[in-house]
């Protein structure tokens, strides 16, 4: 089923310190983290975001610390998908590992603005801007990562693999 939601657009180098400031890292509770999602980048984000919305950003999204609290906060805030020109590597792993869909697509980023409605098909990587009537194609996931996403993340994938071994 395709994901549909409104765009919240940001620039380059959105780092994990602004996604979830370290002052809130004394908890791992997703709902608590969600209340502070994007706080130092966009204090209004938490009030505006609706379930299914899509974060769109320029290059190097999620750079900085390894804190998994960042994708947890984004997912728990109701965001269905992040589309960026590129992702920082630890954030990329963390998102895939917890089955938060992320897609790389320069054209979709350049062709979307905050408030636009997007439709994203994860399997094919097709992105449509419903507000503007435009269509884009994201880089497809390598098979292994699609497998991880389909399993519901790395823990579930590994749990099954270990169970098969035993």
């Amino acid at each position, binding site marked *: 089923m395709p994901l549909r939601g409104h765009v919240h657009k940001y620039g380059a*180098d959105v*780092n994990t*310190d*602004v996604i979830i*400031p*370290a*002052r809130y*890292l*004394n*908890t*791992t509770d997703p709902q608590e983290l969600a209340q502070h999602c994007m*706080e*130092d*980048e966009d204090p209004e984000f938490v009030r505006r975001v609706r379930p299914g919305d899509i974060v769109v950003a320029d*290059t*190097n999204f999620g*750079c*900085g*610390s*390894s*804190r*998994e*609290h960042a994708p*947890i906060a984004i997912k728990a805030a109701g965001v269905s998908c992040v589309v960026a020109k*590129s992702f*920082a*590597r*630890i954030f990329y*792993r*963390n998102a895939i*590992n*917890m089955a938060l869909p992320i897609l790389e697509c320069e054209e979709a980023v350049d062709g979307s603005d905050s408030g636009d409605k997007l439709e994203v098909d994860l399997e094919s990587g097709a992105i449509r801007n419903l507000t503007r009537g435009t269509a884009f194609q994201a880089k497809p996931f*390598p098979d*292994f990562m699609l497998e991880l996403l389909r399993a519901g*993340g*790395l*823990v*579930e994938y*590994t*749990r099954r693999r*270990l*169970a098969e071994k035993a």
Partner: protein
Amino acid sequence: MGMTIAEKILAAHCDRREVQPGDLINCRVDFVMANDVTAPLAIQEFRKLGVARVFDPQRVALVPSHFVPNKDIQSAAQAKTMREFAREQGCIYFEQGQAGIEHILLPSRGYVVPGDVYVGADSHTVTVGALGAFACGMGSTDVAIAMATGEIWMRVPPTLRFIYHGRLNRWVDSKDLILHTIGQIGTDGALYAVMQFEGEALRDMSVNARFTMTNMVAEAGGKAGLMPVDQVTLDYVRPVARRQWTIYEPDPDCQYAATHEFDASKIETTVALPFSPGNAVLLSEVVKQDIKIDQVFIGSCTNGRLEDLQEAAEIMRGKKVAPWVRCIVIPATQDIYLQTLKNGLAELFTEAGCAFSTATCGPCLGGYMGVLAEGERCVSTSNRNFRGRMGHPNAEVYLANPAVAAAAAIAGRIVHPEEVL
């Protein structure tokens, strides 16, 4: 086709004769680490796997460093979760007061050695790559898998080569080299890649100074930082190593994705302005702006080693911190803290009017021990100056080497160290 150091290490850890950039591999790990912020999530995910024990308790270290001694009830609960798991599993654990920042502590005690694949749930795990190990920061879930299975999936990264010809000028150290480099290539200049550092300027550099460079590979988006093993490395490793090490040399015909060459004798003292470690500007330009400051932090996994504190102490000896400025000095480990008590540095900093504390990451990530108020400015020897990193989103952090930080504390503004000598 020939392989780089990184490719050789990874091939040896997945039992393949050859790997190439882009290959997806399942890789054995020699050592795994998490800290008090990342371990609670890793433990939560570990429990979901249906595995009773970590793969090898002597290869899993849990290090309280970020919010310890605990800053509040919630962080105490996180440290407790980690402590109880460490006791249950019998893995390596250091109690508060006996530890410090993992990236300095673990190599200095010989837990990670050349040729290792080492993964840690902290982005600055890359620091240890200066020993010629493949050290890689990951998230808590990845580390949970590594703790349970002793393996981790990886995509073999391309290697970027950085060569520093010539010798360093006075007042220029490894911090300036890496700030300059990130300024040149950008904060995603090494995205997904290995940064391999070498050249004449690094030859005489201590392992401790080298760690400052590999530490900030994270700020360039790199997956790992590596330095070829030499006599300096071996002199550091030999007295402390807990395992046999392996030295990997690059093949003469190996492929580098790019080679960046620098004339180190032309690199000047550098400061990274807010709000990016990539905003590298010459100190000589920054001093013209007459930037008044409120706080200085000397410490962190980037510059909290004894040599860094000595560099700062040479500036501060016999002087006082400027009025209306606070200077916070934190050794990176308790071993270093003890040395400063014995060699007089603790006294020197305290007499100069610094707040001098037990080892912790503390102010670097705005946890505690020096959080900034709105509109305040700090010169810090740490690695990140993102918005909100050390406190209020409208506070500013300037990244610099320890001598520049100490000089700022004395002058109350950003100056050249020679100005306060």
